[in-house]
């Protein structure tokens, strides 16, 4: 009995000349919320489709819940839940009709189906809207309906592809509460996102860029082990200073945050604070705690922040 929900070795997917997922290795333990963090087009959706068996991998091996994915796709489908990036339920059906359809597809009939649907309507706060057509609902409601449908059959492993991209912050908090509930009840969850604050809530995460995994681990470890120092620089004329600093080979990136410049200095500088004082004597400099965005910038080599 393995304790891994997902295990992937050398997983790759090529579309023509373009490699969307490149030699991805994953080992995700059961019971955790695992995040895929990366910008648009980095291969999050493609990775999830590969892991659910929706797309055929160009190469690599995947084990899901201890079983080899290849050849077991159909058996595994009863144990997996998948909430697609795009709303994938029927706009012209009501909330309840959508749930009834999904219930029947998963073999729920009669009383068992009714009970489960009522349970989900209550859990996801959709009881009042159960007659409303899905197409006319707000982003938050659609997302709750999609989650209800994806979890109707109580899957052991749940894939969520950018579940909160069309949702306001209030609903996002709510949504994450539901995810922690699911996780507490034993569901393993893989969620993709391009929001740093969301990624920070995950138990562990992988940073993806252009199909490559650049880093993985728990957010705390990633931040603690950041191979760079974070220094806040304040003072006048920050824009020209920024230009000047980014020229230096030891400076990974410099980004303006309000009245500060947030500068990432490579670890090859033993005394980063001193180094910065020399570079900009007219400004105040101070060390600060790294955050996940710094981790992201360092692991993608500063290519996404400027």
């Amino acid at each position, binding site marked *: 009995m393995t304790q891994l929900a997902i295990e992937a070795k050398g997983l790759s997917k090529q579309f023509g000349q373009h490699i969307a997922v490149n030699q991805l290795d994953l080992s995700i333990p059961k019971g955790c919320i695992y995040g895929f963090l990366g910008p648009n087009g980095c291969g999050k959706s493609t990775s999830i489709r590969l892991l659910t068996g929706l797309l055929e991998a160009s190469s690599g091996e995947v084990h899901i819940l201890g079983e080899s994915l290849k050849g077991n796709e159909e058996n595994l489908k009863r144990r997996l839940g998948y909430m697609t990036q795009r709303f994938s339920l029927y706009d012209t059906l009501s909330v309840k009709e959508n749930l*009834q359809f999904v219930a029947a597809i998963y073999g729920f009939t009669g009383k068992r189906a009714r009970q489960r649907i009522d349970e989900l309507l209550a859990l996801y706060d959709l009881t009042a809207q159960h007659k409303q057509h899905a197409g006319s609902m707000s982003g938050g409601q659609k997302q709750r309906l999609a989650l209800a449908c994806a979890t109707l059959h109580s899957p052991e492993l749940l894939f969520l592809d950018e579940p909160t991209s069309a949702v306001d912050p209030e609903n996002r908090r709510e949504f994450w509460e539901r995810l922690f509930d699911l996780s507490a009840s034993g569901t393993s969850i893989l969620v993709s996102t391009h929001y740093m604050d969301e990624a920070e809530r995950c138990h562990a995460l992988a940073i993806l860029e252009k199909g490559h995994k650049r880093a993985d681990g728990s957010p705390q470890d990633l931040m603690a082990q950041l191979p760079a120092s974070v220094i806040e620089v304040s003072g006048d004329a920050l824009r020209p200073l920024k230009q000047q600093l980014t020229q230096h080979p030891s400076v990974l990136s410099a980004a303006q945050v309000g009245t500060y410049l947030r500068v990432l200095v490579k670890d090859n500088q033993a005394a980063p604070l001193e180094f910065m004082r020399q570079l900009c004597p007219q400004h105040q400099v101070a060390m600060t705690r790294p955050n996940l965005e710094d981790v992201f910038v360092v692991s993608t080599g500063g290519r996404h922040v400027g």
Partner: protein
Amino acid sequence: MWVRIYAVLRKELKQLSRDKMTFGMVIMIPLVQLLLFGYAINTDARHIPVGVVNLSQSSESRALISDLEASQSIDFQQEYPNINSAQQAIVTGEVRAVLYLPSDFVSRLVQHPNYYSGQKIAPQVFTRPVGQWLVDGSDTVITSTIKALQNMPLQSVGNRTTEQAVASFAVVPFFNPEQRTVVNIVPGLVAVILTMTMILFTSTAIVREREQGNMEFLINTPIRSIELMVGKIIPYVLVGLIQVGIILGIGYWVFSVPLMGGLTSLLLAALLFIFASLTLGLVISTLAKTQLQAMQMTIFILLPSILLSGFMFPYEAMPNVAQWIAECLPATHFMRMIRAIVLRDAMLTELLKDSIWLVTFILCGLLIASLRFRKKLG
């Protein structure tokens, strides 16, 4: 398995009943087409506008003109002074044909064999046509209507009563005694409309799920491709039967197209063809990536189904290549079957060859569709 098929079926029916556009098309396509073909399309030309250049100006020439007009196939609308102005009128489209009667019309007429019916004419007498037709040949229906006048009897010209010529053949129409085009068109229209709607509806219904992203979720559920396909097809079988009912019903009550054959044979034949068209739609849905592509492919099938199936032109009159293509189309086989059943009271058992062909087509189509329809994206 049945639970899932039923779930898909119920979902599909609900979506269909809420999709006003598609629902309207189910009813409107047969209605509009039927009225269009029933009233407007008529291959027997009537009242073709023609002109005349009458250089003879005799009582005989005027008698000939009124004789021609009595046939109702042409209307003399203009008289032109000379052949040049008549030609001009054809070019501008003012008239579709012009009758030219030369100044020696009367002397030609009295020498013409059709003038003295029954009476032998000395073979050495040189006879010439009494006049000439200039026809706008671009429309073959008009040309053939005028050509039919070529051998018109001329005895009655000049009010001379003579015995009637005996025709070489007597023609007895076995079916459709009044020779109305609509009688042949209405059953044929069943084939054309079913081809159009059945293929289009199934192919777009499945491609739409893929386009709108529903398929991505659906593929990740335990549903099997055959369950999805059967569940999607069945509602459209009902739609097809409703359309057959509408077309034949209106044909019967509005156009008095007889329903000679048994309803069981009719129902079975219609079901066979509906299933054949639906499986064709399924195959298309596995090829097309967008609804637009599905529509284009449907038209690609629809055009030969209209032109080659025997709906427009008799199958036997087509060149061999066209016949081979026609043989591949389910519409051709159904066209034969439904005309035989509706108009000639044939039994399905007498149409075994076409029935077997359709069954084979359905089985092959289902096989191809389920082989091609993989539960994968991309």
